[in-house]
């Protein structure tokens, strides 16, 4: 048991392309030719990749920043894998970057920073929507979530 843990620790590394935790480099997702390479979804942590993958709805690539901006904790742009992201965008194949960092103050700052950095490169930068959880009860949603959901409301169009 102890040996297998040590082995696991030795084998697990960060993918040199996307920064996700992997036991092979490049990771399974980066090495998958069938995945859409015109879209990159930017995430804070590796655990977020697992969450996104579970949806089976996203078929593009990922980029794990290894955290979010937090000056109080000494995390500035240099501490995140932002240079690596820019490197990946250089060949012009990527058309959209989806920023899916957490909806915290720090996640939001990271998204805003990236938007300012990437927009001048002619890349479409999008931010995931925030709001109510699916199958959730309005009663149980906390106020902040409700406020966000209200802000992100959309017109319901019907065929007339």
């Amino acid at each position: 048991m102890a040996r297998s843990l040590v082995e696991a620790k030795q084998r697990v590394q960060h993918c040199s392309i996307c920064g996700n935790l992997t036991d092979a480099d490049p990771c399974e997702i980066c090495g998958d030719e069938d995945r859409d390479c015109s879209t990159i979804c930017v995430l804070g942590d590796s655990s977020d990749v697992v969450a996104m993958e579970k949806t089976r709805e996203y078929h593009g690539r990922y980029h794990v920043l290894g955290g979010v901006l937090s000056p109080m904790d000494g995390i500035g742009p240099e501490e995140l894998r932002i240079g690596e992201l820019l490197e990946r965008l250089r060949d012009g194949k990527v058309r959209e970057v989806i920023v899916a960092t957490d909806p915290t103050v720090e996640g939001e700052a990271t998204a805003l920073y990236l938007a300012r950095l990437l927009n001048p490169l002619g890349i479409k930068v999008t931010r995931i929507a925030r709001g109510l959880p699916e199958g959730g009860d309005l009663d149980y949603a906390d106020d902040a979530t409700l406020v966000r959901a209200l802000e992100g409301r959309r017109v319901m169009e019907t065929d007339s």
Partner: protein
Amino acid sequence: MEDVFVRKLYLKNYRSYPDLYLALDPGLNILVGANAAGKTNLLEAIYYLAAARSPRSPRDVELIHWGQEGFYIKALVTDGQVEHTLEFGFRSGRKKSIRMDGVPQERVSNIVGLINAVIFSPDDLSLIKGRPDIRRRFFDGEIGQVNPRFLSFHQRYYRILMQRNDVLKRLRRNRAVPEDALVQLQPWDEQLVQAGGELIVMRLDALRQWGALTQATYRELSGPEEELDLAYESSVGGSQALTSRSPSTEPPTVVDWQAAFKDALERARETELERGHTVIGPHRDDVRLTLNGHDLKEYGSQGQQRSAALAIKIAEVEWMRLETRRSPVLLLDDVMSELDISRSQRLAQLLDRGTQTILTCTDLADVDYDVLEGTLWRVQNGEVIPVVERK
């Protein structure tokens, strides 16, 4: 109006109480005890149920019983036909934990408003005489009690502010040029301006109502010759009258405030880089009180200042009743002895509406308890004992 009241209260290692269990009267509770017997601590614990913080100490760690590592408060709150349990736990160095009906709550904003409380204390005078941050903390805390949305934005704003100040501190240390500074500040500026605009407008909405009630209450207390006015002094957009009887123009919207805040930040950029912190914003705003046009803090007599402080608190009760359609629990900390007859009568008017009230005094003679029906308690040595026989 539905009655909301604290039916049972349990305190563990809270201030002077290592272990206290109390079944409170839904009406009036009179706590008699010597100075420093722990009466104020008890009121403070009840206030904590409403605001999730102490009215006196901004830091939870100060509330822990001497020599202990944490405190715990549990209460049964009756709201009409429904009963809720509220639990607060705090251990030094950790985040406070909150449970409602046994379910852990991530955010304070989820439980505030379940019960509201207004505390009257001799310290209230500091609302008039004290520094701006005392008023800011007070008004923000009370608006947060009735408006969870305000509380969410308030927490968000101060989080952004802390992060932004850290960036500014670093930029100052590295003597950054303004162009570099801009790139690093922008992600925080944008959020600061957004949350800040919301915060100011929510403050103004609440303070206009509360201010008008304060003005009317002051007139009742002091007669028609003296006119008390309140104004919101914003570091972002100048002075906003809160009690003007002829609202001349449409008040600025959230978007207007955000735009003004953004401009003001740009103008303050150099100063901020010099000083290494955020110099403008709602965290620098103040509420100014004037009497017949003269600054109350500078020129008011002791009596005028006391009346104004009392007017703010009485008006707060009325304002909360209007906002929440419920009566807040009233906590009166040794205030009767300080007030003259007309003022204490005005205060007593609030009490005869079947609202739960917890009143403390050192001497029963200070309380006109022929008028007041309720349960009498004696506070001593960390214990609160019901007094069966009333004189």
